[in-house]
């Protein structure tokens, strides 16, 4: 009896040391992973003079002057606004159009449904890098280069394939009886769509919203293709296109990077679970 107890205690100690070692390893890797980001924030709080003498340490005399310079001298207010003016309407339109298309698929005949869905899914095989030359020529002929609408429409078109596929997956699971009952109560299609499918399909739409918001906020290629004028660029493009302007003022550059990254990191830390679920669903269900 006592023998098994000692045995069990030994096993428990062994397992405990095991998890302590694992935690230590994970702790070190996690620290190493965020170290560049910590360095970025620390550096952004130093004056250029302090940075030259103290490149790696804690900011001894932390100051916000680099951040102020960004908004007074480097036009960062405008870039930030540009990012919002592109991301918010793009994502809103993607959600509306994908939800409407999914409802259209739900009510359509079986045969056309399969064909249309396949037509949307095929778009996954065409990355935006495979269409940039004609896209540029087309948008230019429509006067949509250096134009918010041009960028927004391109974002919507590029997102539609995945967005419809994901949203339809959720809409399909909504029992038809609910919609039928609503129809008997006199609801039209538009009401059934808004009152039943949109609320019940909300988890799918949330997935699309998270995935696309991040993709569009972080987008580089399409932005440099369409927004060739500096004052129209989004924050994530402006911050590296203008790198020459910063010269040796590394703190100002890092303050810029911090401003570009912070909205994303904060949103992620608040909505970690939804964020992770949305990103992985978006990236694996393609």
């Amino acid at each position: 009896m006592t023998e098994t107890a000692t045995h069990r205690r030994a096993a428990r100690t062994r397992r405990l040391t095991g998890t302590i070692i694992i935690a230590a390893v994970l702790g070190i890797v996690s620290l190493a992973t965020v170290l560049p980001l910590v360095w970025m924030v620390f550096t952004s709080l130093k004056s250029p003079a302090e940075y030259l003498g103290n490149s790696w340490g804690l900011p001894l005399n932390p100051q916000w002057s680099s951040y102020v310079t960004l908004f007074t001298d480097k036009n960062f207010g405008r870039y930030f606004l540009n990012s919002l003016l592109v991301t918010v309407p793009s994502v809103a339109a993607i959600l509306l159009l994908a939800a409407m298309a999914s409802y259209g698929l739900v009510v359509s005949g079986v045969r056309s449904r399969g064909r249309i869905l396949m037509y949307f899914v095929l778009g996954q095989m065409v990355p935006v890098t495979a269409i940039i030359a004609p896209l540029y020529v087309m948008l230019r002929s429509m006067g949509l280069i250096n134009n918010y609408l041009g960028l927004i429409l391109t974002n919507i078109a590029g997102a539609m394939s995945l967005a419809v596929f994901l949203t339809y997956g959720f809409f399909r699971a909504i029992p038809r009886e609910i919609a039928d009952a609503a129809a008997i109560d006199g609801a039209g299609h538009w009401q059934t769509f808004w009152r039943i499918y949109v609320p019940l399909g909300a988890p799918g739409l949330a997935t699309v919203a998270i995935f696309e918001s991040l993709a569009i906020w972080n987008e580089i290629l399409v932005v440099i293709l369409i927004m060739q004028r500096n004052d129209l660029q989004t924050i994530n493009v402006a911050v590296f296109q203008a790198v020459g302007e910063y010269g040796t003022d590394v703190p100002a550059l890092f303050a810029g990077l911090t401003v570009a990254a912070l909205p994303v990191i904060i949103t992620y830390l608040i909505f970690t679970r939804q964020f992770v679920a949305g990103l992985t669903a978006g990236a694996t269900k393609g």
Partner: protein
Amino acid sequence: MSRRRWVSTVFLAPALLIYTLLHIAPFLGTIALSLFQYNGLTKPAPVGLANYTSMLASDAFWQALANNLVWFFGEVVVATLVGLGLALLINARPRLATLFRTTLFIPYILSWAVAGMLWSRILNPAPTYGMLNAFLHAVGLESWAMNWLGDARTALPSVILAAIWKGFGFSMIIFLAGLQGIPAELVEAARIDGAGSTKVLWHVTLPLLRPITSIVIVLGLIGTFKVFDPVWVMTQGGPGNASSLLAILVFREGMNNFQLGYSAALSVALFVCTAVVMALYWRFLGRSRVVEDD
């Protein structure tokens, strides 16, 4: 019935219209444009397959294709293995497991503008500015210090290093989801049969993760042909073509050299690579779904 079809058409129309006009039509345009010489200003001149023959004869194209393969083995495979290792550790549920998981995923959500600029600074050749070279100086390995992004031998590996840092969080999360799907009874049964942790890992856990591993690797392979941002931000493909990838060539030829027809031919090559891998992936997925149904 005809009313239903009408309703369906109305709801589908906006999405179909914009998707066709700005995604599918430009793709057909790519194929057409690849048969022309077009500088964006003068009238396009039909040249037959000349763009393709000059593409296949150019060193830059083959170098980019080879670099895409290097990217796959260097970035995708390594990031997947790192992600798998970390997922296994987190799945042992040590203290603070949630904190570690949340922290390790952070690089994945950053933009390449931020991650690329940050790593450009870390890899900066001047010891005062570059973290890596400063570290090498500090530990007495000055001779190892390099112009990481400016040297043809290290430019691509350096960008790949940054991409592993940014990318492993993704496979880690996917593997964690897979690990949670392994029934506890299976592991329990193996333990009762006297299997130690290593044996359980080798004979139970890893074999059960094999389908997920293939999916992560294939997704990575498809993604490889689209990679643009990290290289564009950190090296723009340089020095020379040392770190250039297919997508970089497409953009550079089209937007910097105004060879829009040639750029389109490169786009077609990029599409073919993506489509072949994707078609294989769908066949593979289709088969595994059939297996699940049985």
